[in-house]
């Protein structure tokens, strides 16, 4: 056997192994060396429901830094609108937030109407507002189930899918499309309501309220859900406003701001008796709670709209070939995911010159590096789910 005091023979593998072992022991004795790990979440990952990618730097299970990388599903809608006539654009922008699509069309149509100085008749405005709110209900119902799935309770999502059908069926029977209604026209809506629709819708609104009660029992009342969500991903009001959050994410931080009430709009919200729900905590639980209350509030709004539906035409007088006069306008509405706005520049042609789309999810996601810093890996799913983004709304 080799004598350890002899000169080092670099060809002797036993000697080398001995030295390596000594060195390893010395290192462990000095300090337990640990190194971080970079976890690449997405673009194909169940928590991102779509193609969002988050590069998280981890120390154990704690996130040191997280960076969202967006754009895997960019479809160039802003550019595409420049080669579509105004009526054609609605088909395109339906696909931005694909679960509450009706609401996507409305701000664009309002912007175009503003440029053309047309106003839709009151009945059309009421129908628009009712369908807008039903789009909101269909969208947020999905969230109410999905958040529970992200936390591991699979059953809620099945109830959400089941009960969302009631709303989608009603939207379909008016517009002909479950997800992509394409129902708004400049100066009004395409068709009047079918016979018997009002009664059916009221009963489906009752079913939505039953669903909300069910979620209140199954999800909100669940102690594990509460312990997973309370105090997780807290956004203080000042941080929320400085990151440009909107919608329920902002109201859950205690900021009482709702474009339906606070902005000048030709839609029928001003005629209704309703309440803006806020929550002072700003954590994931309050974001869920605010959305739940908003869904319930929206069902009452739809019922009020249907009760007060005015008679009259559903289209204003508009030319057969729509040419929007030159000018600029920006219209923002309170969409299911938050404030959504269209900045439309027209040069007096058949197509818009430039359209800038402000989507809520894009701004809401911008807070995620700030919010994910220092949380544990399980909370990434909670926080992302509670911020509620639709991938199409991030990458339009």
């Amino acid at each position: 056997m080799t004598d350890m005091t002899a000169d080092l023979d670099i060809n002797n593998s036993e000697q080398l192994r001995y030295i390596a072992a000594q060195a390893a022991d010395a290192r462990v004795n000095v300090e337990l060396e640990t190194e971080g790990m970079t976890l690449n979440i997405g673009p194909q990952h169940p928590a991102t429901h779509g193609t969002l990618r988050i590069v998280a730097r981890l120390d154990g299970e704690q996130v040191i830094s997280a960076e969202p990388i967006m754009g895997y599903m960019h479809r160039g809608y802003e550019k595409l609108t420049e080669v579509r006539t105004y009526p054609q654009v609605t088909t395109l922008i339906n696909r931005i937030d694909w679960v509450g699509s009706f609401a996507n069309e409305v701000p664009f149509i309002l912007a175009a109407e503003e440029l053309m100085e047309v106003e839709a008749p009151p009945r059309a405005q009421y129908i628009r507002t009712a369908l807008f709110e039903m789009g909101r209900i269909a969208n947020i119902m999905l969230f109410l189930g999905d958040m529970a799935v992200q936390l591991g309770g699979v059953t809620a999502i099945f109830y959400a899918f089941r009960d969302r059908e009631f709303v989608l069926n009603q939207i379909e029977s008016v517009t002909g499309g479950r997800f992509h209604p394409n129902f708004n026209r400049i100066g009004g809506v395409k068709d009047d309501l079918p016979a018997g629709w009002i009664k059916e819708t009221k009963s489906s609104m009752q079913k939505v309220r039953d669903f909300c009660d069910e979620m209140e029992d199954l999800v909100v009342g669940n102690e594990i859900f509460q312990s997973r969500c309370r105090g997780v991903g807290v956004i203080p009001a000042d941080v929320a406003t400085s990151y440009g959050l909107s919608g329920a994410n902002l109201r859950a931080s205690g900021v009482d701001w709702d474009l339906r009430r606070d902005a000048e709009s030709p839609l029928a919200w001003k005629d209704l008796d309703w309440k803006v729900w806020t929550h002072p905590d700003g954590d994931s639980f309050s974001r869920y709670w605010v959305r739940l209350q908003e869904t319930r509030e929206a069902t009452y709004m739809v019922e009020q709209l249907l009760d007060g539906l005015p008679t009259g035409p559903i289209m204003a007088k508009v030319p057969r070939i729509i040419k929007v006069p030159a000018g600029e306008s920006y219209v923002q509405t309170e969409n299911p995911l938050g404030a959504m706005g269209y900045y439309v520049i027209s040069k007096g042609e058949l197509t818009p010159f430039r359209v800038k789309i402000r989507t809520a999810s894009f701004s809401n996601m911008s807070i995620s590096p700030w919010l994910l810093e220092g949380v544990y890996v399980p909370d990434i799913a909670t926080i992302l789910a509670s911020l509620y983004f639709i991938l199409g709304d991030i990458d339009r």
Partner: protein
Amino acid sequence: MTLAHFLAVNPPYWVETLTKIGIGLVAVLLPTGALVYLFLFKMMSFMQSRLGPMEAGPYGQLQLLAEFGKFLQKEDIFPSKADRFVFAAAPFVVLVSTFMLVLVLPAGPDTHFIDLNTGIYFAMAVSSISVIGILMAGWGSASKYSLLGGIRAAGQLIAYELPLVLSVVGVVIMAGTLNMKGIVAAQADFGVWFIIPQFLGFLIFLVAIQAELTQPPFDMPVAESELVTGYLTEYSGIRFLLFFIGEFATAAVFSAIGATLFLGGWTIPFVDANAEIMDYIGPLVLAGKMILIAFLIFWFRITYPRFREDQLQRLAWKFLIPLSLFNIVVTAIFKVVF
């Protein structure tokens, strides 16, 4: 029930062993199949307001066979950086632990594989072998998600091993024996099943087996919304199927152990526990009680969201373990006083 009873001959040792292995496989796979079909497919579907399997065979009865066929056809993928031996061996380690659990389960006065004097002790010991398999899977996959899942699983299983064992101690004190058949006999002598005097122990046992099975609300190791499927992420085809069988077979076996400890095992009230007939209807009675406990397990599984890792550990160490120690103390005092 030895083979000699049936054949009236003394078969060679190897024949008896092979027969026992065959019966053992059937004893694991049949309840597993029943559990998967009845609970995973049908009960969960009805609770979630969907139909479940309807197409394969009458009322979807053959769905399980279809799933088997599907998994067997799939490619057996090894990740390029995986530790091939560890990766390949992991599912078998998990399965071995399940099969060894069955060994000590009595299903009748003479229907059993081995009548160990330390039966429940043996069962608790071999149930923790599955941790090694899960760690092997997590490490061998060479994937970050798998590694996180494997380590979470190890931490969780070790933590919940303790309340599991401690909740059983109450039953052992009352029965005065570690032998599974002895525990069943003690329940028959005692008059009521141990679920009544040991209700607290039963609840702790339920929570602990839920965690041992890594099912919601304790499914942090396979949390699909964060870790894809944790240590299972890289598995496909037959190896995934083995893990799948392991998961549900363990659920079945743990339910059967729970039925033996707390619900009187193979016995039924007002029938002599040692009657000859019990050898034949005992397995059915045990299966019925097993289904009852499995129903609870799967009901929790689909109702609750999951705990976070730290909350889960806190529940084990700060709540369940003190509670089960309290249970042991109270049981011991009653045992001494009465």
